[in-house]
């Protein structure tokens, strides 16, 4: 097996239960060295618990996590980088001091100059941590996760709460990290993010993986069709015979269909107001809807 194809991480039948909730329910997957693996799902699906079980924050009730084919040992902490979903930065330190502090906690260190450039921290390098914006904070947290030049990088919802521009900024950085043959494990509930960044995605719901594979192959397998989106203020009582799957959402109606022409003909025949209608090819959000019957952001 070539190095590129080697599995850097294997998760075998992992389970974790908290009082009143089974957070992770016997999941298994493996991640290839140099790839980007995405855990997708709505809030409460078990993504963060899964990633934190792998990181060693929690001990699993059952199952195993193998790093480079072995149980995680001391070198695991030296070789992985972690960005949590919610972490406060150390107070009263500058960006430079924070980065230097985290670098000094590791035996192996990333090149500081390269780190600053790749995470685009030049402008805020000497700024107090308390005075940086949300997007800048996320980039600093990412730089802290990269402080030890990790082989495996965990990013838990790295773009949640960021504006679209800051999000794209972070995607560029992650793609750059990927291009350096680093392995990235990412959780997100943004399907677009997963489609752009991930080589493999595992869609989670209620602690279980309900679909897994490359985004394109999942779409080919489950969602080769088209999605028609209508505004919600129409009379939809006559639509039950429509040639497709109909989902009523809070502010819109979505119809997933393999025969868009027939669908539109049906709508015209029923005299449905189609102003504001949009037609698009299906994406991972449609896949999640199809698999669970609910919206990923519910």
């Amino acid at each position, binding site marked *: 097996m070539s190095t590129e194809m080697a599995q850097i991480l294997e998760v075998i039948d992992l389970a974790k239960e908290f009082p009143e909730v089974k957070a992770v329910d016997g999941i298994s997957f493996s991640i290839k060295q140099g790839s980007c693996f995405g855990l997708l799902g709505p809030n409460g699906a078990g993504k963060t618990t899964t990633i934190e079980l792998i990181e*060693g924050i929690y001990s699993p009730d059952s199952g195993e996590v193998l790093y480079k084919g072995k149980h995680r040992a001391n070198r695991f*902490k030296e070789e992985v980088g972690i960005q*949590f979903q919610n972490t406060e930065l150390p107070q009263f330190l500058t960006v430079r001091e924070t980065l230097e502090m985290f670098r000094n906690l*590791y035996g192996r260190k990333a090149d500081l100059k390269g780190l600053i450039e790749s995470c685009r921290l030049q402008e805020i390098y000497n700024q107090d941590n308390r005075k940086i914006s949300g997007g800048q904070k996320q980039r600093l947290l990412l730089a802290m996760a990269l402080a030890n030049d990790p082989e495996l990088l965990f990013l838990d919802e790295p773009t949640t709460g960021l504006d679209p521009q800051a999000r794209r900024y972070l995607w560029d950085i992650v793609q750059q990290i990927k291009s350096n043959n680093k392995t990235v494990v990412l959780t997100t509930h943004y399907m677009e993010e997963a489609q752009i960044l991930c080589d493999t995605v595992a869609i989670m719901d209620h602690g279980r993986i309900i679909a897994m594979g490359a985004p394109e192959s999942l779409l080919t397998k489950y969602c080769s069709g088209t999605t028609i989106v209508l505004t919600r203020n129409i009379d939809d009582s006559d639509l039950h015979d429509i040639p497709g799957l109909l989902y009523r959402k809070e502010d819109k109606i979505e119809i997933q269909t393999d025969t868009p022409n027939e669908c539109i003909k049906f709508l015209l025949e029923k005299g449905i107001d189609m102003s504001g209608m949009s037609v698009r090819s299906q994406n991972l959000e449609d896949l999640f809807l199809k698999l669970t019957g609910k919206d990923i952001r519910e």
Partner: protein
Amino acid sequence: MWKRIWTLFSARNKEFYRDKSALGWNFLFPFLIIIGFSFIFSEDSQTFYKVGVIQSDNQLVTSVNDEHLNTFLQTKYIEFVPFDSDEKALNILQHHKIDLVINPAEKQYWISDSSPKGYIAEKLLWSGKIESKVEYIKQNIDGWEVPYIEWLFPGILGMNMMFSSLFGVGYVVVRYRKNGVLKRLSVTPTRPFEFLTAQVVSRMFLLLVTTAIVFVGCKTIYGFENRGSYVSLIFICSLGGFSMVALGLLIASRSSSEEFAGGILNLISWPMMFLSEVWFSLEGSEPWVRKLSSFFPLTHLVDCARRIMNNGAGLFDLTYQISALAVMSVLFLTLGSLLFKWQRI
């Protein structure tokens, strides 16, 4: 390992000295206390009893045709408050704001039977009439008297160290746990021992530096003397400070709620402040109070510091207190390390 400890030590120190409000308070607090208490307990302003004197022109008479009353009016530590009517004075007496009311013109006085201070004030009023049949020779303690401020200062120093240790470590570790900084550190190669060592060393360093500055500052202002050795004093401050830092770590070993930790810290620090002879001696108090007091590290710290500074005691004279502080330090640190959790539970 040493590099990680040094890194965390430096980061904590920077956090401390850049937090200007906390830094300022650390220095200012003991000065304010000393200034306040030196004023309150100065001879001029120190009064233990208040006596109302009824005067027709609202001026306290300086010459009354009554030798006994004149003697009484010159008693030190009693404040004589003039009143223009019985009614006003008695109303104040009813509310225990004064301890005795005297009307020289009418040859009358009033006290409240339920007031212990009124009872003593009455005794003082009559003390001039008592002619002692026993001959006692008055002796002064000039030469080895400890001025009140010199007795008070080691207590204030110890109290400042206590607050700095308990809250400076306990509160900070709980805040780190609450805001996820500890969780972030837990996934680096940093071990709990390294983190805790850095916190202890940092706080000890800051504690000794601030204590030294406060000591020098107060000594310069008030000019009191240290009758013992400075080495002994530094040793005792280090050991006492260490035991209280260890207690702070024990309190912060698990909690992630600042409110809860704050409550526990207050629950410990307030009794410690009042029962460790910082403000007043426990001489003559109930045995259980003295027993309880012996479980507080501050009691031994203050006792040692006073005996060194006021009496010039050496470390060998303080074997019991030093042993108690050492045992407490080891106990608190061991328990704190064993119970320590990086994350919220």
